[in-house]
């Protein structure tokens, strides 16, 4: 690429997407490179250009051009602010901004499915789904600009473990453009036949088991941070919009007790929304200004489980009634007490918060304007030891342990658990920012040493994650070589520095 002048590249790109869909505005660059999370040293490269394709054909042409010119493409679907550094170029390249591909192509109520393009946000999807008595399966307060497809592709946990059967959920079938420029439709969307022909046969592109054939291409794309190619649409699972809902808090000082209760609830598939927060994380969700957050945190129990039972289309009251009855028995057994409110909020209010994307500013920015997120997978029973380690690490570096926000999200119906810590700091205060950075770095190592599994590692955590699994790295590199032999897709991310 070094031998090709920018003006020539721009001309080639214009031929594909048109002049109006290309930008070299430095301010626009900042929204991709100035991520809220850490990136690997020495920091991101400045993008050459930003292009905004309008459809799959343009995406395919862009990838083919990148192969011809040796151009690095960095896909981006969500709007700013970007959190994890996926859109920050680690090598000179062109941002492929998919946010203008934002159609909800299709939705079906009976079969609870939608087909969406990468630019569709949770707010947009929620509104459209509600018209058909459906709802999206949301992660915890996504940013208003967050792409649904990007979230699911990154295996971000949803707050509904009961509907999370496997790690691909709620993603079903996809259309992918590999790093080679080849197109692949996956699952039952693969064909035979066009989508229109399939719809005539009542096929809804719902099979989540991968394929075509003996490969699950979706699994190879998930958590790849755009290093394998670009997804141009996906079918996703939706769920029925409940007619009756009964949310509850379970505040508790003893996290082990709360976790034992959770294991039983999830085993019995009780509760739709289901998550555990420590007092500081809960306060950050409920309150809006920093002083209020601090005060509210002090009033909470150390840990709070939030769950909601629901009734759908048939006998909704009856469904809620039996679940509440069954939960009461479980709660009694584990000596916990579900409640309608905690200090500062009713359970109904909490549900309203969880039902929507985060209001602006993004909830993790409320307390101090900046944050460092560190997340990993473990099993629920091991989560308390990681929380203790995180607080100890923070404390040892001068970060107040009671300002570590902890969020536990059971996944795969309780078989494992996403653990997330957020460290808040004032970006204008250099000392605070440095301290949060030091805690982040130290915690990454300490948690990894203690058995945290960084299953979707971002920035510097990728080095830590891949250091422990050389066989996986060797195989991933072979796979990357197949799907992106010229290394045009988001160079330098994950373990692909040397490819």
């Amino acid at each position, binding site marked *: 690429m070094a031998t090709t002048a920018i003006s020539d590249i721009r001309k080639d790109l214009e031929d594909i997407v048109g002049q109006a869909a290309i930008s070299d505005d430095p301010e626009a660059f900042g929204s991709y490179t100035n991520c809220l999370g850490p990136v690997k040293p020495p920091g991101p490269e400045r993008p050459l250009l930003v292009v905004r394709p309008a459809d799959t054909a343009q995406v395919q042409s862009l990838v083919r051009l990148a192969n011809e010119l040796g151009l690095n493409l960095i896909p981006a679907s969500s709007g700013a602010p970007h959190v994890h550094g996926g859109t920050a170029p680690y090598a000179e390249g062109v941002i492929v901004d998919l946010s203008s591909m934002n159609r909800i192509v299709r939705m079906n109520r*009976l*079969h609870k499915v939608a087909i969406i393009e990468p630019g569709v946000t949770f707010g947009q999807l929620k509104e459209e789904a509600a018209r058909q008595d459906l709802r999206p399966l949301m992660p915890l307060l996504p940013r208003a600009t967050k792409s649904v497809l990007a979230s699911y592709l990154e295996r971000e946990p949803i707050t509904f473990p009961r509907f999370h*059967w*496997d*790690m691909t959920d709620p993603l079903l079938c996809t259309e992918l453009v590999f790093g080679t420029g080849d197109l*692949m439709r996956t*699952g*039952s969307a*693969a064909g*035979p*036949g066009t989508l229109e022909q399939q719809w005539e*046969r009542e*096929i*809804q592109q*719902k099979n989540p*088991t*991968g*394929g*075509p*054939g*003996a*490969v*699950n*291409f*979706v699994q*190879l794309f998930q*958590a*790849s941070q755009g290093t*394998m190619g670009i997804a141009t649409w996906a079918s996703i*699972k939706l769920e029925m919009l409940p007619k009756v809902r009964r949310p509850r808090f379970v505040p508790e000082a003893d996290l082990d007790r709360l976790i034992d209760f959770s294991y039983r609830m999830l*085993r019995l598939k009780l509760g739709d929304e289901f998550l555990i927060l420590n007092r500081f994380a809960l306060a950050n969700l409920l309150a809006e200004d920093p002083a209020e957050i601090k005060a509210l945190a002090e009033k909470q129990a150390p840990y709070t489980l939030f769950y909601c039972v629901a009734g*759908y*289309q*048939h*006998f909704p009251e*009856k*469904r809620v*009634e*039996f679940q509440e009855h*069954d939960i009461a028995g479980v709660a009694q057994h584990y000596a916990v007490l579900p409640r309608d409110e905690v200090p500062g909020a009713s359970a109904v209010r909490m549900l309203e918060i969880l039902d929507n994307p985060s209001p602006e500013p993004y909830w993790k920015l409320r307390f101090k304007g900046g944050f460092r997120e560190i997340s990993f*997978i473990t099993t*629920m029973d091991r989560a308390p030891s990681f929380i203790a380690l995180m607080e100890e690490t923070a404390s040892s570096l001068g970060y107040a342990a009671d300002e570590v926000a902890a969020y536990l999200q059971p996944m*795969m*119906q*309780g*078989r494992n658990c996403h653990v997330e810590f957020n460290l808040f700091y004032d970006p204008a205060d250099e000392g605070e920012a440095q301290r949060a950075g030091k805690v982040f770095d130290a915690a990454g190592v300490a948690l990894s040493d203690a058995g945290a*599994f*960084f*299953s*979707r590692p971002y920035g510097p955590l990728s080095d830590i994650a891949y250091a*422990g699994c050389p*066989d*996986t790295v060797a*195989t*991933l590199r*072979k*796979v990357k*070589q*197949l799907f992106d032999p010229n290394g045009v897709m988001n160079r330098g991310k*994950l373990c692909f520095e040397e490819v």
Partner: protein
Amino acid sequence: MLPEEAYKELQDALGPENISDEPALLDAYAWQPAFSINPDVWTPRPIAVALPGSTEDVVAIVRICNKHGLKYKAMCLGWGAHAAPGCEGVVQIDLRRMDRILEIDEKNMYVVVEPFAVAGQINAEAKKLGFSTHMISAGASHSPLASSTSGWGCCWDGVSMSWSSRNVMGVEWVLPTGDVLRLGSLDSGLGWFSGDGPGPSLRGIMRGRGGAFGGLGVFTRCALKLYHWPGPTENVPDGLLWDTHKELPENSRAYIALFGDERALADATQEVANEGIGYHSFGVGLGNFLSGIWPHLMRNEAFRKAEWLRKIVDVMQFNWMWLLCANSPGELEFQEMVIRKEVAEHGGVLIDMEQIGLGQPLFWGWVLGSFMGVATRCGVIGTMWGQDEVQHAMMEERVHGGEPIKASGVERGFVENDLPGSGFHFFLEEGIVSHYEEVLWYDHRDRKATQGVRDMVAEYTMMNIDYCMESGFVAGEPELRTLYGPMEHNFHEWQKKIKGVLDPGDSSDPTLYSTEQEFDLSSLSPAEQARARRLIEEKRSGNR
């Protein structure tokens, strides 16, 4: 013929009692007739059979085969032709010595097993702790590891217990080169709780809708999800099959609903599934079911021609069964209310199977996976099926596509008359999609029957393509892969590429993963052939 040096090396690695090239023994391994679309009676005879007892033994076998340029093929329970070598010169790795249940993690709801741990055995141990494992339609005598890592994998319990492919967590995998790869958290030394990551999930190359059927090495251990079982921890009924006697667990029921047409069935059952109802949720052909139990009676000409029997089958054609295992009386009441409402609103009739004395055998037969043990009583089993999709798509394909082909096969004398009207049909993951399958019983020693089944598969394949569905055997059969590949974004070429990088020596029997073979349309009439070619071209051009 296994080279003498290779034999000696295998003998040194495994012990003399665990390697054999005795012709009589090898012939036994070449009799694998089930699920074959190949008219040949025998599968290729292996050149030796090796019985590893550990992952280290498997590594040794694979390395020895690579060193001597030999191919190998692993098998677990050997449920069909897909377990056998697909070509000449293959060492069959029989994993029967690796039969342990290694760990049951009650809290995190998974079990870690070796290849020859049998579904019935795992299920019995799991039920002692209040869990069930997903059991595929092969029943209690299949290998869940094989189904999860390498085969297909769905069944009547899918509504509450998912598919084999989605139930697998951490995996230990001896790659075709002999290197050991552990998937997910296992490779970082952190246990079995995740099979994905860091970053992209290598489960994606392990398998897709179907597995590699021995084409990508050998899987030696894996973790599988367990699901809650609200019934008793002791589950041995008195008697067998229809003679089974054991009370249903508390809060359990066995219902069958009969509907007037396919649309009513599809609408009603989907609504019920959307409420997350059913421990098992399925439809089954009455004759198909009876033929496994009374094969001689079903072959009796007078019985088959009985008009009254045909009428019963017709009435039962659009049936659906729910086995309910609720966690509380309230949950059971809710489930029954929904089922009653939907059946009534769609003009159906609901029968409580306990009220007619059939609840116990039906319930335990399915929950314990024992009915399929009699599957081969009326002949070798073969099947034809499309991909899993939403209930309404499957119902269209079943009624207007699959059933007429099956009936025609019976008419032509290729397969046993099991009073076709429906095969088996079930939901997965609370109704996300359903699965439909036509079951064929036939005499594999009869060339007319095996060729006839092959002809039916050709007809069924063309019907699948017309209905925009991937054939069930696409994962596996070379000629279906070759046919479908260009209609589905050349996925077969990607499989060849994956094979190339993971198995540079092409040592892991490639037949069912990466070889190609032209699809033979010659059994179709000239007019049907012309139509098939038009159809194939249309679907291929739509994919470009």
